[in-house]
Structure formats: C-alpha cells, structure tokens
C-alpha cells in the first residue's frame, strides 16, 4: 500500500477510472511505454488526442447540421475518432463511437444526434478526470517505477 498520501490518492483515482469503465487496458499499455526518458508520455499522448480529436468533433458537429445528412461522411469521421479514442484507452468514448457508427449504418439521424450528445459528454468528463489525474501526478512527484502492476 502506498505510504505517500498523494500517491495513494493518485492510485485510488487511477483505479476508479478502470472500475468505472472510463479507461481500458490500452491506457495501461501506454503507461508501460513511459520511462525515464519520457516520464510524461501518457500525458503527452492524451493531450495530443484531445487537441487532434477536437477538430474531428467540430467536423462531425458541422456535418450533423448539414442538409442532406451525409451518413457516409459522418461514419468516416467517426471511424477516425474511434481509432484515436481506442488508442488512448478511452472506453466509454469508444463505446459511444461504435454506437454512433451503428446509427450511421442504419441511417438513423435521430440516433446519431442523440448519441453524439452523449459522446461529447463522455469525452468532456474523461478530459476533466484525466486533467485532474495528471495534475495530481505532478504534485505527487516522480514515480520510482514507471509502470505499476495491474
């Protein structure tokens, strides 16, 4: 059990992400790539993800307002978005992306719009959680080992 109270808090926060289904194993894969040369690798990738995917979110939003609805284009955007989300282990966001693509394939406009609202919520929630996590990690100081057992 971690003696340092900040580290313990960090550990508990991290565990909650997995227990509550926000993150999946891919996040752990990224953590295992972190080393002394790149101690902030995970934070860098997550930052890159939010910066990169915000453009996609905007494109999807614009496409949802266009008439007529272009399901193929929406599906293509979502395919990209889902890929990036999957790469950082964003489990709930990925699930919403999958659902969105199902609605695209079945030509369900209402479904797409509802699903996208939910997706944006999950996307924003995860962002807040991870921002708090990385901030706490910086406060807690460098870890002795780069990767923690699952």
């Amino acid at each position, binding site marked *: 059990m971690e003696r340092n109270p900040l580290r313990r808090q960090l550990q508990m926060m991290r565990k909650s992400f997995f227990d509550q289904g926000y993150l999946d194993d891919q996040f752990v894969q990224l953590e*295992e*790539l972190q080393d002394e040369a*790149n101690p902030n*690798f995970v934070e860098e990738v997550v930052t*890159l993800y939010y910066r990169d995917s915000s453009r996609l979110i905007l494109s999807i939003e614009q496409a949802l307002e266009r008439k007529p609805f272009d399901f193929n284009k929406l599906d293509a955007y979502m*395919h990209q978005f889902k890929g*990036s989300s999957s790469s*950082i282990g964003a489990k709930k966001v*990925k699930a919403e992306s999958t659902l969105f693509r199902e609605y695209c394939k079945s030509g369900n406009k209402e479904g797409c719009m509802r699903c996208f609202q939910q997706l944006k919520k999950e996307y924003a929630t995860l962002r807040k959680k991870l921002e708090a996590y990385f901030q706490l990690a910086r406060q807690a100081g460098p870890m002795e080992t780069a990767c923690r057992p699952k």
Partner: protein
Amino acid sequence: MVVAGEVLQSGSSQELHVLAVDDSYVDRKVIEKLLKISSCQVTAVESGARALQFLGLDGEKGSVGFNGLKVNLIMTDYSMPGMTGYELLKKIKRSAAFREIPVVIMSSENILTRIDSCLEEGAEEFLVKPVKLSDIKRLMEDCVTRGETEEQEGRRVHKRKLEDDNLNSSSSSPLSSSPSTTASFGCDISIPELLSSPPHPSKRAKLHDGD
C-alpha cells in the same frame, strides 16, 4: 519489463529501421514509442504518398530514405485517406527495389476478407489495432529470425555458386546448361519463400471487442 531490444542484440548488430505510416497523429506517436522502446529506428509519415516519397518510389531515383537509412520493415495503417495501406502494400510489392521489405498492415477492423487480401498481396502480418508492445516484440523476433535464416541461406547460395563455377570452368561455351542457374539469385539474397511465412493463427482468429 523485458525489452525486445534484448532479442535484437543477441541476433543482429544493427538496429532495424522501421517506416511507420498512419494518418492519425496519436497513432503515429504511439507506434513510434512502441518501436523506439523495442530498439528500432523509426521514421513515421502520415500517408502512403509520403511513404513512397521517402522510399524514392514516387519517380525519383534512390532506394534509401532521405537520411540514407535502409528501411527494414514497413508498418502501415489500412484505412487512410487518399492511398490506403492496401494500395501502398501493392505498390511496394510490385516494385523491384522494395518488394523484399516486409510490410505489416495495422487495422482497427478485424475483417477476414481484408486480412486475406492483405496477406495474399504479400503482407507479412495483419495487426489489429490498438497495437500492443507484445505485437511489436513478436514482430521483432520474426524479423530477427528471418534475418538469421537469410544469412544462412545466403551462405548456402554462395556455396552453390562456387560449385557451379567449378563445374562450368571446364566448358568453353558460356551457354552450357548447369544443374542450377545462379543468375536468378542476383546480388540480393532474397528468398521469396521466406516472405510468405504463415500468419499467426492468433491474429486471424482474434476477435476484437471493438468492431
């Protein structure tokens, strides 16, 4: 944590240079890290067109990349705008200079027909995304194994060539038939059979929870 670099060092003295192709910035960053941690040199580009440019296949001469490093392995995403990974694969396999370079396809979609067509076109492996460190480690082991096998095959080929030369030395006609022609081996030791190693059953059968 066991690093794949340990496997590499025991087999070869050189680092592998991998050309990674992916339109996703996030994925490029991750694959770059995965490969660097596995002791590879990495060049990551964002499209098939850029990959061909790097290889010098876009009409310009030269079989090495801009920085003069020979490419030992190409890893490409399947779904990319413009040129897909499949199209890139075909272009590489149809080029005399680069067809020997193993090409690995990465895709988030585990579609059997897609896997089959890639393997048929000569892809070395089909990896389901997101790619893990264990996938890279296995790739590195396969590459090293093939490298060692090729070295052994190369020695055998050279030996056969010497034997043929001895056989032909007594004949005056340059067109006299010999038991085995050495012309086909050329200056590159490339044994086509080695490239079509059977795909790992785990990859074909693996059901990704995503799609």
